[in-house]
């Protein structure tokens, strides 16, 4: 038997709801809305009586039903008598009324209009850019102090950091760069062989790897690998109060947490970029030698002829900037993490997305700058 509630009219002014049966959230039971509607549709009703006949068992389903009825009666100024309500149920209802209500909610629940939304996003971008620039400013000051010897970095930790962001990234950088070189060469061979210009595969691969692909690929790899790790580590430290503890032990958060990471990645990125470029060229060489009649020596001399020092320089300059910004974004996002585990995941995702976007945008800007400089 499931829960039953019946509405009867005693006379013109009194409605009686008799409740019986087994009320369970796992089974069908009446909903308060129908009753409220019926009662409100008869304006002559002044009073609602609750009757409990043969109530077998009950759980939250009945409590919820009664609370809804009570609340709507109260708001419509109808008298309702709860003396008949079994004591256990009455206590639970009273309990639910006495716990204090937090009136202001931490986030506004209202759905924003499209204009509001665009405005908010605009402001958000503006202010995050502003705080980020402030953060970069502090980092640069830190770097200046570091160079002048006024800020010290713990050498053992720094060495480990260098190893972590540099040496340990070599395998993945190797794999990706090799494959990218291979793919560029493969696509080029397909096209160039139509004109018998196979030899220019070396030019294409060499220049593409040195100028663009080397630093972009390492940038993207390091965003996902190291930038994310920075954000997650620092975010977790925020959650565990470790960052507060650093501050109340008198350490500067920027100098202690961010500076070593930023310096390490800024130093390591150019090296990784050079490594990536050469491995890419190696990948190109493998394709070219196996798919065409080029010899290793021809390919190498052609590459050396095609790639000039400028290309090399462009790649290195860009990767320095990429390294700096990947680390800065990772650290800053980490430090913005609020106090929950969920936030750490969110923080990490934002850090990766932001730094990959930043890399692509910066690369476009650099392309313009270098072409203006004629490099």
């Amino acid at each position: 038997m499931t829960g039953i509630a019946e509405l009867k009219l005693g006379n013109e002014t009194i409605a009686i709801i008799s409740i019986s049966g087994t009320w369970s959230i796992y089974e069908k039971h009446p909903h308060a809305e129908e009753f409220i509607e019926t009662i409100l549709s008869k304006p002559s009703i002044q009073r609602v009586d609750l009757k409990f006949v043969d109530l077998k068992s009950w759980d939250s389903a009945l409590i919820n039903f009664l609370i809804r009825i009570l609340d709507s009666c109260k708001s419509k100024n109808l008298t309702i008598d709860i003396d008949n309500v079994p004591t256990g149920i009455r206590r639970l209802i009273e309990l639910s009324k006495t716990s204090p209500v937090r009136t202001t909610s931490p986030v506004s629940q209202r759905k924003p209009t499209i204009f509001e939304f665009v405005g908010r996003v605009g402001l958000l971008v503006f202010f995050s850019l502003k705080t980020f620039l402030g953060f970069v400013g502090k980092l640069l000051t830190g770097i200046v102090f570091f160079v002048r010897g006024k800020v010290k970095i713990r050498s053992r930790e720094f060495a480990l950091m260098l190893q972590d962001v540099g040496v340990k990234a070599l395998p993945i950088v190797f794999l990706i760069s090799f494959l990218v070189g291979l793919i560029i060469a493969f696509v080029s061979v397909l096209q160039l062989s139509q004109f018998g210009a196979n030899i220019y595969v070396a030019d294409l691969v060499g220049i593409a790897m040195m100028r663009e692909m080397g630093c972009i690929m390492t940038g993207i790899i390091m965003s996902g690998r190291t930038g994310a790790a920075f954000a997650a580590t620092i975010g977790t430290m925020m959650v565990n109060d470790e960052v507060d503890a650093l501050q109340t032990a008198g350490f500067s958060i920027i100098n202690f947490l961010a500076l070593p990471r930023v310096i390490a990645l800024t130093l390591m990125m150019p090296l990784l970029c050079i490594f990536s470029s050469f491995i890419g060229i190696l990948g190109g060489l493998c394709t070219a030698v196996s798919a065409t009649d080029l010899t290793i020596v021809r390919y190498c001399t052609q590459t050396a002829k095609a790639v000039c020092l400028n290309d090399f320089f462009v790649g290195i300059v860009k990767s320095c900037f990429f390294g700096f910004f990947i680390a800065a974004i990772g650290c800053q996002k980490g430090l913005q993490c609020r106090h929950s585990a969920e936030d750490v995941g969110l923080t990490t995702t934002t850090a990766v997305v932001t730094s990959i976007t930043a890399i692509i945008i910066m690369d476009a800007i650099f392309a313009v700058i270098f072409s203006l400089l004629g490099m």
Partner: protein
Amino acid sequence: MMPKVSVKNLNMDYDNYVVMRNLSFDVQQGEIFLIIGQSGCGKSTLLKYLLGLKPVSHKKIFYDGKDINSMINLPGFYGEKIGVLYQGGALWSSMTLAENVALPLETYTSLNGKEIEEIVALKLSLVGLKGFENFYPSQISGGMQKRAGLARAIALDPEILFFDEPSAGLDSVSAKRLDDLILELKESFGITVVIVTHDLASIFAIGTRAIYLDIESKTITAMGTPHELLMSSNDKNIIAFLSRGTKIT
């Protein structure tokens, strides 16, 4: 006598959400001062303000009569003047216990390596963690992490120690030991102690004075010794808070 810490009409909020209004109290030299109240009422937030971790306007919080804003940038404020034990210990997870305790010593004192090692061993043995020097925080239990956090907090012999719920998560024996240790630090070093807590046993065992932060009226509703609070208060929240497990007539 100049109060050690003095708070005047402090308002606390997160963005738009008001946590507490109009807090005023003084902490005297050498006392064990308790900040009590239901969870979520803003005790940890108050601690953040007292520690200078949240920006505060001028003439609100004073240490030895000097505005906190002029203190936090002075060398020696953190570490020498104040030490903190956070709710979960907040040990730096990439360092061993010994390194955690040693870091402030290495940075702020001119002690040589051997002396630092000895002091680290001393502080760790004070909190009952002798022999755990080379453990990482993840390798010890929550209660032990908390004690190690205390060893770190007292590394530089601070004048004022702050605790955020020191006994939360400790078994009753460890909690008692921690209470004893706090009393000991107060008696022998004259350290001033500020404790955020809702642990009844330690409220009555060690507290010299307490303020009650009321979650409903969003301000301090009672101040005095814990017994005074229990006896003289007619606020039902305070009585309920302080009399759990005991029958009052």
